[in-house]
């Protein structure tokens, strides 16, 4: 049992994992190491944490449009997030996932949900436009 929310599926799919909510803005380009999946931006509060396998919750995107390329590289190496929940409308990261799909690599579902209420450690599941949170 648990609660569910309806968002907008930017990239459709189903996945589950522990939520990792970014505590500060992060550009994937220059902010996530495409070889390890670790947050590598000096001074970021979550420096050194791995985004691999998480349901990554990003309220506000910043930075370089080369972040699409970092997203694709993470998915190509099978070290990407399990899913993305975006708080603001954006195409940069979803495009990385779309290209992965075109290339036959496992894409990462992306859902748009304003003011996503998830905290780091919540167990979250996404299915098309629905997000479920399991009870602790």
């Amino acid at each position, binding site marked *: 049992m648990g609660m569910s929310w309806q968002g907008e599926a930017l990239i459709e799919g189903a996945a589950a994992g522990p939520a990792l909510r970014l505590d500060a803005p992060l550009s994937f380009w220059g902010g996530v190491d495409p070889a390890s999946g670790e947050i590598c931006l000096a001074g970021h509060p979550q420096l050194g944490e791995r985004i691999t396998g998480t349901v990554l919750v990003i309220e506000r995107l910043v930075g370089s449009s*080369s972040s699409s390329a970092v997203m*694709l*590289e993470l998915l*190509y190496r099978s070290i990407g997030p399990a899913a993305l929940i975006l708080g603001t409308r954006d*195409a940069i990261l*979803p495009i990385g996932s*779309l*290209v992965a799909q075109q290339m036959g690599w496992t894409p990462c579902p992306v859902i748009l949900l304003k003011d996503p209420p998830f905290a780091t450690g919540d167990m979250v599941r996404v299915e098309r436009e629905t997000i479920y949170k399991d009870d602790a």
Partner: protein
Amino acid sequence: MHLTQIERGILAGETGTVGGRMAMEIVVAAGRMLGAGALVPVVSSHIDGCLYHGDSGVLFCERLADEGARVQVPSSTNVGALNLLKPDQCRLPPDQRKMAFRLMQAHDRMGCSPSWTCAPYQAGARPSAGEQIAWGESNAVAFANTVLGARTNRYGDFLDIACAITGRAPLYGLHTDAARRGEIVIDVSALSPALRDEDSFYPVLGALIGTLSRESVPVLTGITPEQASEDRLKALCAGAASTGSTALIHIIGVTPEAPTLEAALGGEPARERVDVTAAMIREARDSLSRTQGDTVDCIALGSPHFSARECRTLLRLLNGRASRVPIYLCTGRHVMETLAIDGTDTALAALGVEFVVDTCVVVTPILPPGGGAMMTNSAKFAHYAKGNTGHDPVFGSLTDCVESAVAGRLVRDFALWG
């Protein structure tokens, strides 16, 4: 989202190549994600995606090329990860260097013009005011919108080449009148005329504008068209696009759609007004330096790529004196060809200038490892130096850079800054 019959046909695979269909899928998907109502035809593209970030991007561009994708509009290329005229200048491991080369080749095969420059607008790519384009590279985007009055959002990896292949972009953002309206007025008319006539004022002002305007479209007043030389505007746009997400600055009297303040604001009142003081501009200048003491280990010039005029100014300022530290001068082939005519290239090299062509020192490992103090007259280099190269930036004018290079230690003259 409204799609034309041709667009639907390409998506359905009824017409065109598989590569063309993949590109159309990307442009349409991006349009849906961004809430665009339709696609808009574009007349040119500038491709940022030829810089190597990993093997996956190479495999994707090769797939597009293999599947018959070809650009439908003139498409210049931004920097790659290699100096193709001197590949061993870059310290990438051999396997990555090979992949970086394959990525540049794939763009060649798709019909891009191999300009390999972040200043395409100084290499012949000059769209006209009001034309819809799909450009990548933040400084080029800001220059195209601000100085040329063409219309583009910031298009990055995959979407840039997809727009070039389809000849279309999602109709949203800076392609539309509504999103181009100025919102925040930045007035520099209180600053001394001498400072406003100093080249190194412009990258600093750009950095300040990027910080002040955040997501808004800024309107700049207090600069005369005579002061606004092309190289100054280039430095201004690059600074703003580095510290902020600025992709358009309405400069009154310079930007084609901003002949007056009223026109720039679209007849509405400004949401915010900032009168720039000498103290604000000094603080913005100082935020571009991170070193203590007077050490200078190298000089980096050319972000955006130096023009022929800037190269000749450098030669004149050096005035026959050799540099004690390496001067890395980043520029494009279009400039090298010009410099070769009168021997400016060999004259600069003889004084300690190392040319970095087709690429630049903050996007690929060229500077010696281990860090150090990197002096520059570019706000963009100063902004990205630490994160991308490990070097600590020191900002100064081109004259300061030259005097420091010759002295082998930091020499700066900030008298004009008050």
